[in-house]
């Protein structure tokens, strides 16, 4: 193989112009693949992040009156009794769930929630509210209060509350101001604004109020119960699988996940991905054909040399390998150059979009794995494209090519 490699390298070096052109061709193709792939991934991440970044990926509610965990050795019967006072079923005895869910590695956030409807009353005005009773530390894993709180703090205790920015605007509420929350049944209680948040969705900013979990339980007459447990997962796109897995584990629990609720977004993302793959496939085809034609010409150009090499004892296998290696070298080096060019393109894109607004349109990260796959596929395709020229080289008969 050493000898074949030596010849392959020398042949490539000798045909400098050809080598350079085809390598540049491969590099441009790969750069487009890298850029396109990164752009699409970046765009999708941005979209998904905007959609589910600051909301639960999976929500656990009670389906029946009793939730049990499948085949546990210990006696931890996770259960809830139905509470039919409210429209929704509620979860009682939910603490064992938290312990169980906390131990699940794929979950990054586990947050119990009490929710209910109420009215906000201030200066004679009245508007509907959605009360979200939370444990502020646990809920922070989902809502990233640090990022979304526009003023004040997000630590909740007693009669403190976090209100949506639209509510604050409509009622001219500021930190330290108080307002009245009234339930349908007539119960009412005064709360103080300790923070104002902007979760990026108009509906939420207009209606949501976060209260301390215990305070909300009391206000909504939940006793020790909660409405649901909100979860986030580390791999957003596996939310449905994880939900199914949990569903098998916890009998009687009802899981909803973001993927089911955003089917149209997902189908848009899918078609975007497949169009990206289509483009990448055709780019790869162009690269492959380019290498094949360059090597085919090279075999013809070098047929006398191959002939003499064969006369001197180069086997047909070696004569073939010389060209297979050339394909591999062209593909690999071209792809490496392409990765570099693709990186430059991405930097250019970030710089270009940042120039207008000060911030890049969205974050782009070259994926190591994705890049390795492209490198590997390009090199493999290059080797395959070298097969026909290499076969011609193997078939050359020394006495035919050395006449005259």
């Amino acid at each position: 193989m050493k000898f074949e490699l030596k010849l392959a390298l020398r042949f490539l070096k000798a045909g400098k112009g050809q080598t350079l052109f085809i390598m540049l061709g491969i590099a441009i193709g790969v750069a487009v693949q890298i850029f396109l792939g990164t752009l699409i991934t970046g765009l999708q991440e941005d979209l998904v992040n905007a959609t589910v970044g600051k909301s639960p990926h999976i929500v656990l509610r009670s389906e029946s009156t009793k939730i049990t965990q499948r085949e546990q050795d210990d006696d931890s019967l996770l259960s809830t009794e139905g509470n039919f006072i409210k429209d929704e079923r509620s979860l009682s005895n939910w603490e064992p769930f938290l312990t169980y869910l906390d131990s699940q590695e794929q979950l990054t956030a586990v947050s119990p929630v009490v929710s209910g409807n109420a009215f906000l009353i201030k200066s004679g005005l009245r508007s509907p509210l959605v009360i979200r009773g939370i444990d502020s530390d646990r809920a922070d894993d989902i809502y990233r209060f640090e990022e979304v709180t526009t003023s004040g703090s997000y630590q909740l205790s007693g009669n403190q509350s976090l209100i949506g920015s639209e509510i604050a605007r409509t009622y001219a509420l500021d930190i330290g101001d108080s307002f009245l929350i009234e339930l349908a049944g007539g119960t009412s209680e005064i709360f103080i604004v300790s923070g104002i948040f902007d979760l990026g969705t108009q509906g939420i900013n207009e209606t949501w109020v976060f209260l301390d979990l215990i305070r909300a339980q009391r206000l909504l007459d939940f006793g020790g119960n909660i409405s649901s447990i909100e979860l986030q997962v580390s791999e957003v796109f596996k939310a449905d699988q994880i939900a199914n897995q949990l569903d098998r584990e916890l009998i009687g629990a009802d899981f909803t996940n973001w993927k089911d609720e955003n089917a149209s977004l997902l189908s848009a993302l899918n078609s975007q991905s497949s169009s990206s793959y289509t483009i990448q496939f055709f780019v790869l085809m162009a690269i492959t054909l380019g290498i094949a034609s360059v090597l085919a010409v090279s075999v013809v150009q070098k047929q006398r040399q191959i002939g003499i090499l064969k006369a001197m004892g180069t086997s047909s296998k070696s004569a073939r390998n010389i060209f297979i290696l050339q394909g591999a070298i062209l593909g690999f080096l071209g792809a490496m150059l392409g990765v570099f060019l693709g990186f430059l393109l991405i930097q250019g894109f970030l710089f270009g979009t940042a120039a207008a607004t000060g911030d890049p349109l969205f974050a782009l990260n070259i994926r190591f794995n994705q890049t390795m796959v492209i490198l590997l596929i390009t090199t493999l395709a290059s080797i395959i494209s070298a097969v026909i020229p290499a076969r011609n080289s193997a078939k050359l008969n020394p006495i035919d090519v050395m006449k005259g």
Partner: protein
Amino acid sequence: MSNCLLQACNIKKTYGTVVKTEVLKGIDLSIQQGEFASLIGYSGSGKTTLLNILGALDKPTEGEVKFNGQKISAMQDEELAYFRNSNLGFIFQFHHLLPDFSVLENVLIPTWIKDGTANKNRIERAKELLEMVGLKDRINNNANDISGGQQQRVAIARALINEPSLILADEPTGNLDSDTTEQVYALMRDLNEKLQTSFLIVTHNDHIAAKSDRVIEIKDGNITKDFMTKEKEEGEIWQDLAPCYCKLKDERESVL
């Protein structure tokens, strides 16, 4: 006649499937160890075809070739390639050096083919051979940057690097001027004597033929003459060579 190196038995070669042309019509020939033989004949008489078959570059339609008692017509591609690499050296009319390599590298190529790379000994040997052919100061030149005669001398050094027992040369002086032809001949003869390497040289050059140990003439696919030069007087030799030489001259003139 004790050390028979190469033995060809009843070699026939036919080209074409529909219209058959029989180029060799049953050649029996053996080459001895250390022999310096010339193969002469008109263009188209089958010299090169015979040389290719003896050199395992081509297969006979019928008959068999034995090298040191080994049947080479039965070998498969890879075996055959290895056989050529270790036992034979080739010198062609158009020298066929690889233009992308230096003079030294060209000489080393058969070693690379054999072992993948060349060790110190082989490199030293290549330098020695290049010194023998008078190109010691050219070893790092590109193969294309030296004259035709020099290239042919590099080709000879290359043919010798793996220490083959037989060198097959197809009109090695065919496109060289007469001075250079003389030099190249002297070199081959010298190496033949020093290294005991056998040479079989296809040639149109009767001077070379006359100086060989043995002259074999082919005509229409048959051996018509086969004699040792030392068994004949110089005049006789020239007489034997003359018809061929004259006709060759006629041919040349008719082309002009």
